[in-house]
C-alpha cells in the first residue's frame, strides 16, 4: 500500500527539476535522464490506475482512496494533503503522458540552455500535478500560481516571434484571473470559519458545508468562474491562447494545450460544480451560452487563419467549448462527457501541435498559403495527420467522438434549463464548422501539387513517429473501447449526482 504514495508521485518531478541542473552535465545525458524520469513517472502513475478500481467512491462523499496529509500551517488550518479520485487520476496520467511525450519531442526544437529547459519542464509538471492532486484549497491556489513561473520562462526564452510579449500576456492574464480566485477562497474560508468556528482549508469540508450565505456563494462562484474561464479559455478571455501557442516552441505548446487548459476545466468541475451545485444550476444557461459562443466564434476564426499553429490554437478553444456544454448538462452523462472531452482534447491537440511542429521543422514556415503538396514527400505522415485532424473533428471510432457524443447526449437528455435541447442543437454545429476548417487544412497543406522548394525535406524521424504513433494509438484505442476511459471517472461523478 505504501508503495503507491501520492507524495512520491508529486515530488518526483520536483526532485528531477532540482537534480538535473545541478548534477547532470552534457546535453545528451540530460535529455536521456529526463526521458527516463518522465517515463518512470508515467509508469508509476499507471500503477495508480490499476490500484484504484473504479468502484471506489468519489472524492468527497466516500473516503478518499489515498490521502497522505501532513499538517502544514496548523493555525490557519492548511494541510499539505493530497487526494485522488477518478477525475484527478485521469488528469494526472494525462499530464505525465504528455510531459513524457513533450520531452521526447523536444529533441531538436531546443538548441541551448538544456539544463534550464528540462528543469522548467519538470517544475511545470510538478505544479500541474499539484493542482490535480491538491485536496487543500490553499495548496490548490499555490500550485495554480506556481505553474506560471516555468511557463513564462519556457515561452519567453525558447519561443519564436514575440516570445516576451506573449509570455508576459499569458502570465498577466492568468494572474488577473487568479486574483478573483484568491478573493473567493478567502470569502468561503472566512464564512466557513464564522459559521462553524473550525478553521480549515480542506476542499472536502469546505465543499460539503453548504451553509454559506447566498451572496457569498454567488460572488465566490463568479470569482472562481472568472479564474477558470481565463484558463479554460472561454471566448472573451481567450486572447492569450493564440499568442502563447504561436510563440511557444512545439513541446511547450503541446504541454500548454495538453495539460494547462485542463486545469481550468478541472477547477470548474472540482470547485464550481462540487461546491456550489445550486448556483451552477442557476448559471447553467449563461455558461452554456459562453460555451456556445466560444465554440462557434473560435471555429469560424480558425477557418480564416493563415498561420497553422494559430488555427490549431483556435480549434482547441472551440473544442474546450464542448466541455462547457457537457458541464451545463448538470447530469452524470454530461459531466463524464466533459471529462472525456478534456482527455480527448488533451491527446488530440498534443498530436496536432506535434504535427504542426513537424511541418514547421521541415518547411520552416507555418503559413498555410506557402505550404502545399506535402503528402507526396511524407505519405505516412499524411495518413497520421488525417487521423489527427478527423479525430479533432469528432469522427466516430476515435476518442474525439466519445467526448462529444457524451457531452451532447448529456445535454440532450438533461433538464438543467428549459431550452437546453435547442442550444445543444446549435452547439452541435461544431461538427460542421470543425470539419470545414480541418478538411481545408488537410487539402491546402497536404494535397495538391508539390511546391518546388519542398523537394529535399527529410523524412519524419523515428522519435517524432514514436510521439505521433503513441498519441494516435491512444486516440484509436479509446475511440474503439471508450469504456476503459469513461469507466475510470464515471463512478465518482455518478455518486456525486446521485447523492
Amino acid at each position, binding site marked *: 500500500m505504501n508503495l503507491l504514495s501520492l507524495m512520491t508521485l508529486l515530488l518526483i518531478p520536483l526532485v528531477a527539476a532540482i537534480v538535473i541542473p545541478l548534477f547532470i552535465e552534457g546535453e545528451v545525458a540530460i535529455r536521456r535522464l529526463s526521458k527516463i524520469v518522465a517515463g518512470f513517472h508515467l509508469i508509476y502513475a499507471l500503477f495508480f490506475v490499476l490500484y484504484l478500481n473504479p468502484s471506489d467512491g468519489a472524492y468527497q462523499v466516500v473516503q478518499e482512496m489515498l490521502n497522505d496529509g501532513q499538517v502544514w500551517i496548523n493555525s490557519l488550518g492548511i494541510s499539505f494533503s493530497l487526494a485522488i479520485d477518478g477525475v484527478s487520476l485521469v488528469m494526472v496520467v494525462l499530464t505525465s503522458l504528455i510531459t513524457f511525450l513533450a520531452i521526447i519531442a523536444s529533441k531538436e526544437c531546443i538548441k541551448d540552455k538544456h539544463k534550464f529547459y528540462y528543469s522548467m519542464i519538470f517544475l511545470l509538471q510538478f505544479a500541474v500535478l499539484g493542482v490535480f492532486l491538491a485536496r487543500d484549497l490553499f495548496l490548490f491556489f499555490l500550485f495554480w500560481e506556481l505553474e506560471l513561473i516555468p511557463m513564462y520562462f519556457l515561452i519567453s526564452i525558447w519561443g519564436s516571434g514575440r516570445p516576451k510579449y506573449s509570455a508576459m500576456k499569458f502570465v498577466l492574464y492568468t494572474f488577473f484571473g487568479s486574483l478573483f480566485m484568491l478573493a473567493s477562497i478567502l470569502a468561503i474560508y472566512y464564512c466557513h470559519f464564522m459559521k462553524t468556528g473550525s478553521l480549515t482549508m480542506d476542499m472536502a469540508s469546505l465543499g460539503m458545508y453548504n451553509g454559506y450565505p447566498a451572496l457569498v456563494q454567488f460572488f465566490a462562484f463568479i470569482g472562481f468562474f472568472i479564474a477558470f474561464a481565463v484558463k479554460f479559455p472561454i471566448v472573451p478571455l481567450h486572447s492569450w491562447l493564440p499568442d502563447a501557442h504561436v510563440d511557444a516552441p512545439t513541446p511547450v505548446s503541446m504541454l500548454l494545450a495538453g495539460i494547462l487548459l485542463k486545469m481550468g476545466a478541472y477547477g470548474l468541475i472540482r470547485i464550481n460544480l462540487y461546491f456550489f451545485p445550486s448556483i451552477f444550476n442557476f448559471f447553467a444557461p449563461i455558461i452554456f451560452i459562453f460555451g456556445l459562443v466560444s465554440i462557434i466564434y473560435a471555429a*469560424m476564426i480558425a477557418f480564416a*487563419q493563415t498561420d497553422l499553429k494559430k488555427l490549431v490554437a483556435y480549434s482547441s478553444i472551440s473544442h474546450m467549448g464542448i466541455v462547457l456544454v457537457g458541464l451545463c448538462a448538470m447530469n452524470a452523462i454530461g459531466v463524464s462527457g466533459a471529462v472525456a472531452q478534456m482527455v480527448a482534447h488533451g491527446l488530440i491537440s498534443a498530436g496536432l501541435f506535434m504535427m504542426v511542429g513537424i511541418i514547421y521543422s521541415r518547411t520552416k514556415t507555418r503559413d498555410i498559403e506557402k505550404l502545399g*503538396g506535402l503528402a507526396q514527400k511524407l505519405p505516412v505522415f499524411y495518413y497520421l495527420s488525417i487521423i489527427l485532424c478527423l479525430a479533432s473533428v469528432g469522427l*466516430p471510432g476515435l476518442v474525439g467522438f466519445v467526448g462529444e457524443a457524451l457531452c451532447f447526449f448529456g445535454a*440532450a*437528455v438533461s433538464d438543467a434549463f428549459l431550452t437546453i435541447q435547442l442550444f445543444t442543437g446549435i452547439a452541435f454545429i461544431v461538427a460542421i464548422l470543425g470539419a470545414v476548417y480541418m*478538411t481545408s487544412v488537410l487539402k491546402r497543406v497536404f494535397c495538391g501539387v508539390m511546391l518546388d522548394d519542398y523537394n529535399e525535406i527529410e523524412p519524419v524521424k523515428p522519435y517524432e513517429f514514436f510521439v505521433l504513433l503513441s498519441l494516435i494509438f491512444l486516440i484509436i484505442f479509446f475511440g474503439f473501447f471508450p469504456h476503459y476511459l*469513461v469507466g475510470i471517472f464515471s463512478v465518482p461523478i455518478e455518486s456525486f449526482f446521485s447523492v
Partner: protein
Amino acid sequence: MELILQNIWVVAILPLFSFLFIIIGQKGFVHLEKKISMYLTVGVTFLGWIFSVFALIYAIQNQGNPFQENFVWMYSGSLTFSMGYLIDELSSVMLFMVTSISLLIQIYSHSYMKEDPSYHRFFAYLSFFNFAMIGLVLSSNLFQTYIFWELVGLASYLLIGFWYKKNSASKAAQKAFLVNRIGDFGLLLGIMGFLFLSYNFWFYEADVLLGFSSLKQATEVALVSTSSKGFFVVAFLMFLGPVAKSAQFPLHVWLPDAMEAPTPVSALIHAATMVAAGVFLTARLYPIFILSPVLMQLIAYVGAITALLAACMALVQYDIKKALAYSTCSQLGYMFLALGVGAYSAGMFHLLIHAYVKALLFLCAGAVIHSLSSQQDMRYMGGLRKQMPVVAYTYLIGCLSLSGIFLSGFSSKEQILSGILASGNMFLFYIALFTAGLSAFYIFRTYFMVFEGKYKGESQVEPVSKVMSVPLIVLAVPSAVLGVLLSWCFDDFVSFGFHTENHFVFLPLISIVIALFSVWLASIFYWDKKKLIDTELVKLPLKSLHRLFVEKFFIDWFYDKILNKIYAKAAYVLSKFDRFVVDASIDITFQSPVAAGKLLNIVQHKKIGAYILVSVFLLVLLCGFIMSILNLIV
C-alpha cells in the same frame, strides 16, 4: 446455421483487420507480391458474401423475429450505448447486395488499378469501406448506425481524394465530406431529439438503447410526449441524414464531383452501396417517418424533384461518369419517391435492382475509360461496339433494364409507378412517368454516343482484359433476370405490413410505350449513322433550357457563391474583430500604465527654476486658501 449467425459480426470485423493488415504491412512484405492485398480483400469479401447468403436463408425462413446480438459499448450515467448486429429481412438483403457487388468490383479493380503506384492503399481503403458499410447494414441500434454512417462518409472522403495529387480530387473529397457532415449533423440531432422525446421508454422498457426492434413502441411514446410539429422537426432532422448521403435535392452537389474518384470506387460507392445507405436508413426509420404524414409528403416531393432535376442535368453531360452519376441521383430520387408515397417494398426492390444495374453501367464505363487511356469525354468515343463487344452488350443490357423496358428494371419501376398511383397523387405520377421517359432517353444517349457510330477519338483503343469483362458478365445476369425472378415474392418478403396492389392494368403497357418512344428519340439524335436530324438544329429553341441544365440549375453556383464566399468573409471579419478588438483591448489595458508613466514623465525635466515656480504657485494657492478661511473667520 446457428453458429454462422452467432458470429456474423466476423463479416464486419474482418475487413477492418484486412485494412489494418495492409496498412501496417505496407512497409514490409505486402509490397513484395502485388496481389496479396487483393487476395486478402477479395477473400474477406467472399467470406462475407457466403455469410450473407446464410443470413438471407435464415431471414427467409423466420421472417417474423429478427436475430439480434448486442454487447455494451459504453455506459455513463443512465445511458448505456451498445453495439451489436440485427439480422432481419431488410439487413440480410442489403448485406447480400453489398457483399456481392463489392466482391465483383474488387476483382474488377485489380486489373483497373494494376499499374497505379498506390495499389495497396486502394485495396486498404476498399476493405475499410466494406467494414463501414457492413457495419452500417448490420447495426442493431440508431447510435451504432450513426457511428458507421460517419465511417462510411470517411471512407468516401478517403476514396474520392485517393489521387491527392490532383487538386480537384481533394477539393471534391472535401466537398463530399462536408455535405455528408451536414447530413450527419442532422441525423445525430434527430437521434438526440428522438431520445429526449422517448427518454423514459428507453430508460425503463427497452433492452437496447435506440434499438430498431423496439423502435415502434418508442415512436408511440415520442408522439405522445410532444406536439405533431415537434415530432415532425425531429423526424425531418433524421431525414436530413439520408438526404445528404443519397444526394437528394438540396445536398446532391457532391455526387457529380465525386466522379474524381477511380471508376471502381464510383461504381461501388457512388452507384450501388453507399448512396443506397440513405434509402436503407429511411427504410429502417420507417416506423418514425410513417407517423408524420407531412414528412412522408416531403420525402415524396424531395424524391420527385431530385429525380426530375438529375434526369434533366444528365441530358447535357458529355462526361460519361457524370452522366451516370446524375442517373444514379435521379434513380435514388425515384426510390425516395416510392418510400414517400408508402410503396415501401417497391422502393427497396428498386434499390436492389438499381444497385446491380448501375454497378454494371459504371464498370462498363470504367472499362471504356481504361481502354481509351482515361478519356472520359463521350464526344471522343463512338463505335466501340466492334472493338469491345462484351462491354457493349452488357452495357446495352444495363441500359434496357435501367430504362425499364423488359428486364428487371421494368418490374421494379412498374411497381413504383403502381405504388404512386395507389397513393392517388396524380401530380407525382405524371412526374414519375416523365422522368422514366427522360431516364430512358439519357441512358440510350450515352449508349449511342459511346458504342454506336464511328470512332471519333484519336487515342488507340486497347483490348479489355479478361479480368475486367468477367465481372461485367456476372453482373449482367442479375440486372437482367433478378427483377423477373423476385418481382412476385419480394413485396411480401421485405414489406412494411401493407401491400400495394396495382388496379390499373394498362400501367405496364404505358411505361413500356414511353420508354420505347424515348429510346427511338435518342437514337434519332445521337445515332449519327442515321443522321436524321441535326442535333444542333434542335438545340436552338431550347437554348436557355440547355444552358440551365448545363449550369446545374445554378445550385452549385449558389453553394459556392453564397455559402463559401459569405462564410469565408464572415470568418475573415470575425478574425479581424478578434485580432483588433478583443486582443487590442487586452493590450490597451496592459499598455495603459506604461502610457500613464510616460505622460507623467513630461513634468520631470531637470529645470530647477520651473520646480520652484510650481512650488511658489502652490504656496500662493495655500496662502489664498488660508486668507479665504481667515476672511471667513475675521
